[in-house]
């Protein structure tokens, strides 16, 4: 599948989205600050950054698990920013999420077949034998067997459990799947298999992924475009090749440089200096400065430094 180009009809359009959490002493955590981005149909947009940069908050805002404090979310042409939970239900079919820990995402006392079938029942799509047939087909689609549907989560390995979570996310034939660190807890060989599966499913079903990850090497494999987040803001956004081969922002460069290289002949000097990522917590009356993105190449945006 060729890299989707920016269109006037994106699947998801996020405009000037912000999320501020009030904390003690009238201070505020600016978790997501004025983020604008688009997810095109059939593309994987990766959002990378370190702990606390706001990448998971962004995912939760888009799927409306959190309410934004500012900005808009447009899904398939419909503004879903202020929809009530009831009104949101119709849109939820298009929008699914996979979390990091598959064991925590599956009910231990319920067969995995029931877990995968539940979205179809909740949305009153199908029942009975047809439901069973659809669930069996979903298991096969993610590389599992129909006979697995009667088993319980503890009977599966971590990789299998994540396949089950993917099957459940696909049950409603969504258009966007948000993967929030979905492969981070898996061993590398299993991680590679699950990523390959996600790419196959994208080709077959034309899915879009919003792939939230801290792992740049994985992101390089799976993404069409990449957004780099730092302290709640996007500091660089562009095609995968631009971000990895021609990073412009100093934070992107620092992030890439920190990734260990699996080649003992390429050891580098490591910084001995101690630095922490600054806090997104702002005292009362103060707020972060808004960064402006400049287009340095077509589709490649960089924050001014």
């Amino acid at each position, binding site marked *: 599948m060729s*890299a989707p180009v920016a269109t006037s009809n994106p699947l998801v359009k996020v405009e000037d989205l912000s999320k501020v959490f009030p904390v003690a002493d009238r201070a505020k955590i600016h978790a997501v600050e004025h983020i604008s981005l688009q997810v095109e149909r059939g593309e994987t947009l990766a959002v990378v950054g370190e702990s606390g940069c706001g990448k998971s908050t962004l995912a939760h805002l888009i799927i409306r698990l959190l309410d934004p404090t500012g900005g808009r979310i447009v899904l398939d042409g419909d503004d879903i920013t202020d929809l009530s939970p009831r009104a949101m239900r119709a849109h939820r079919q298009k929008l699914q999420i996979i979390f990091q820990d598959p064991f925590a995402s599956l009910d231990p006392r319920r067969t995995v077949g029931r877990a995968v079938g539940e979205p179809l029942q909740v949305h009153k799509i199908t029942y009975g034998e047809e439901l069973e047939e659809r669930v069996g087909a979903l298991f096969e689609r993610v590389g599992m067997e129909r006979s697995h549907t009667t088993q319980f989560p503890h009977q599966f390995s971590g990789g299998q459990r994540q396949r089950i979570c993917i099957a459940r996310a696909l049950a409603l034939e969504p258009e966007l799947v948000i993967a929030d660190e979905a492969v981070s807890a898996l061993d590398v060989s299993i991680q*590679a298999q699950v990523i390959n599966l996600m790419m196959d499913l994208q080709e077959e079903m034309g899915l879009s992924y919003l792939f939230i990850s801290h792992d740049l090497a994985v992101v390089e494999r799976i993404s069409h475009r990449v957004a780099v987040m730092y302290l709640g803001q996007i500091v660089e956004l562009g095609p995968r090749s631009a971000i990895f081969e021609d990073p412009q922002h100093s934070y992107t460069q620092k992030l890439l440089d920190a990734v260990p290289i699996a080649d003992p002949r390429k050891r580098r000097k490591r910084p001995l200096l101690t630095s922490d990522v600054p806090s997104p917590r702002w005292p009362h009356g103060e707020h972060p400065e808004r960064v402006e993105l400049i287009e340095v190449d077509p589709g490649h945006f960089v924050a001014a430094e």
Partner: protein
Amino acid sequence: MSTQDPVDDLAPTPRLDGVGDDKTATPLLSVRDLRVTFDSFIAVDGVSFDIHEGQTLAVVGESGSGKSVTALSIMRLVELGTRAKIERGEILFRRPDGSIVDLAQESEAKMRSIRGNQISMIFQEPLTSLNPVYTVGNQVAEAVMLHQGVGRAAAMQRALEVFDLVRIPEAKRRLKEYPHQMSGGMRQRVMIAMALSSDPTVILADEPTTALDVTIQAQILGLMRELQRETNAAVLIITHDMGVVAEVADDVVVMNRSKVVEQGSVYDIFERPTQPYTKALLASVPRLGSMTGLSEPAHFDLVGEA
């Protein structure tokens, strides 16, 4: 010797292979044919390796391969509160006085004088390893008082020294902080400081950077490398991350299903792997830059996939 190589001092230390003078040829730690069982389950089966002064050995493998059990066996922590048993094998440790003891046979009383003192351990998650209700300075000082039998003031002085050693900024002020006031990277520095406070000759590090962000991981790996050069300690690092192995190891032991699949120098393992499992492990490691020149996402090669 390629003097023009800018990273020459970072290159792996050549293996000693019994050559050189006798003192260096005797390993600091020698694990021989170790077998550890949990009832009928064999968690570690016939594992052998040596570590010398100033060298880093990486034990690499996936979840459940037996790598952590190997480290816990060296510390003799594996039997505590579990049904684990060291069934067979030797764990020969050369003490600072030159005597060689078999840790697999030592009494708990003797182990207490070695554990956390001559052999220290750093764990993955610093927040669970630190007591939330004591300041970090207190906790490091407590370890010093326990192992070195010194008074409180001297122990606090030593805590300050090791905080400086691990490059904690404003060390004096930081001693008075509680764990929750520190970032993950700073807490891991505290754990490393605690591990170094007794001048151990062997350091066991179980996934020391796995819980850290990548820029912080880079700092901690750089710090560990520098500290090893300063102290000449032997380091056994347990990791699932082949990138970390390539960055720090001299020698590598690859484990799978309780057994050693392959072992050798870091170059042997990365450039001349002989076993299908090692090859598969290397093939599935995401490598930055592997996509240069490609515009589309690409599948991983799964060598030997069933």
